[in-house]
């Protein structure tokens, strides 16, 4: 079986999805189920004191017994905020230590601050967290994160929530070539072909949220993304043909044609 293995645990799906930006929990659940994802990200936020009585809880809709929850540090701009958030997450999820670390550098672009990310990763790894880390697509930083003990590196394809697709496949390729841990594209996927391209490059998986949640029909897009990731993975494993401007090697036999080809057509057929 061609499975995704992260921190020693095996997953069938290479599509990881976020749970934000849906119109309600019913839509969240329907999209997550349709995506086939087994790992789903959640955010950790202050509860509304005095205003939550009877309000449904995300963990009731997407129970940890059914999914591997990946708490994130979205919205954290400092090492301290990120580390505290994930300590709370681990307590909330009964000691679950697989986390998604992101330390942002700028509210306009949500680009990661890699200096702070490296510091936070070091602290978290010392505290026995299993860190899947959101990173810029810098191959050197990605390798440093691997060397310090992160369990997966997750470079951006383009900015969070932008839907701009894979802007620098060459950097991704270098990161993938260098890595001995899973590489997942996280952020920037806009539509199914983006996910396929990421997988064709050799990514181990793709993590997305807005591409599904902000589609006109999120549940249908979740289905498209599941297929896109599977198609890209299979194409990667199959090994694509070489690209040539032209080959002069038609798919059909060149013998037995009922009329002889003209010399010019014979050359280019």
């Amino acid at each position, binding site marked *: 079986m061609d499975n995704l293995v992260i921190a020693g645990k095996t997953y069938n799906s290479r599509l990881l999805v976020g749970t934000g930006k849906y119109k309600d929990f019913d839509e969240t659940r329907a999209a997550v189920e349709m995506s086939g994802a087994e790992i789903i990200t*959640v955010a950790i*936020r202050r509860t509304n004191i005095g205003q939550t009585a009877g309000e449904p809880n995300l963990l009731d809709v997407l129970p940890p017994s059914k999914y591997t929850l990946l708490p994130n540090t979205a919205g954290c701009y400092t090492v301290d905020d990120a580390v505290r958030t994930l300590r709370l997450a681990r*307590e909330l999820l009964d000691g679950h230590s697989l986390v998604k670390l992101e330390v942002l550098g700028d509210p306009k672009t949500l680009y990661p601050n890699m200096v702070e990310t490296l510091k936070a990763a070091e602290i978290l790894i010392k505290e026995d967290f299993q860190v899947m880390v959101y990173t810029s697509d810098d191959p050197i930083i990605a390798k440093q994160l691997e060397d310090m003990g992160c369990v997966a590196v997750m470079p951006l394809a383009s900015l969070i929530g932008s839907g701009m697709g894979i802007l620098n496949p060459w950097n991704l390729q270098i990161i993938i070539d260098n890595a001995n841990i899973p590489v997942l594209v996280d952020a920037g996927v806009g539509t199914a072909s983006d996910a396929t391209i990421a997988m064709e490059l050799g990514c181990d998986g793709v993590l997305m949220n807005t591409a599904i949640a902000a589609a006109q029909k999120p549940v249908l897009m979740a289905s498209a993304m599941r297929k896109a990731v599977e198609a890209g993975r299979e194409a990667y494993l199959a090994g694509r043909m070489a690209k040539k401007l032209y080959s002069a090697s038609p798919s059909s036999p060149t013998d037995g044609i009922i009329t002889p080809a003209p010399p010019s057509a014979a050359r280019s057929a």
Partner: protein
Amino acid sequence: MIQLTINGQLQQFEAPINVAQLIDHLDLHGKRIAIERNGEIVPRSLFSEQMLAHGDQLEVVVAVGGG
């Protein structure tokens, strides 16, 4: 009288309380929450033992949708 800051809001209590009593007071009993007190996690197993002190800063969090 003790004063606590809970998720950034000041609240006053007539008598000293522990974390479990605070959770009841906030109507959060049985909810999936985690609590940080003055920057340190309060393990669920210690909710009934840990007394809160005047000036404590508390964070009470839940999981929400996110990417």
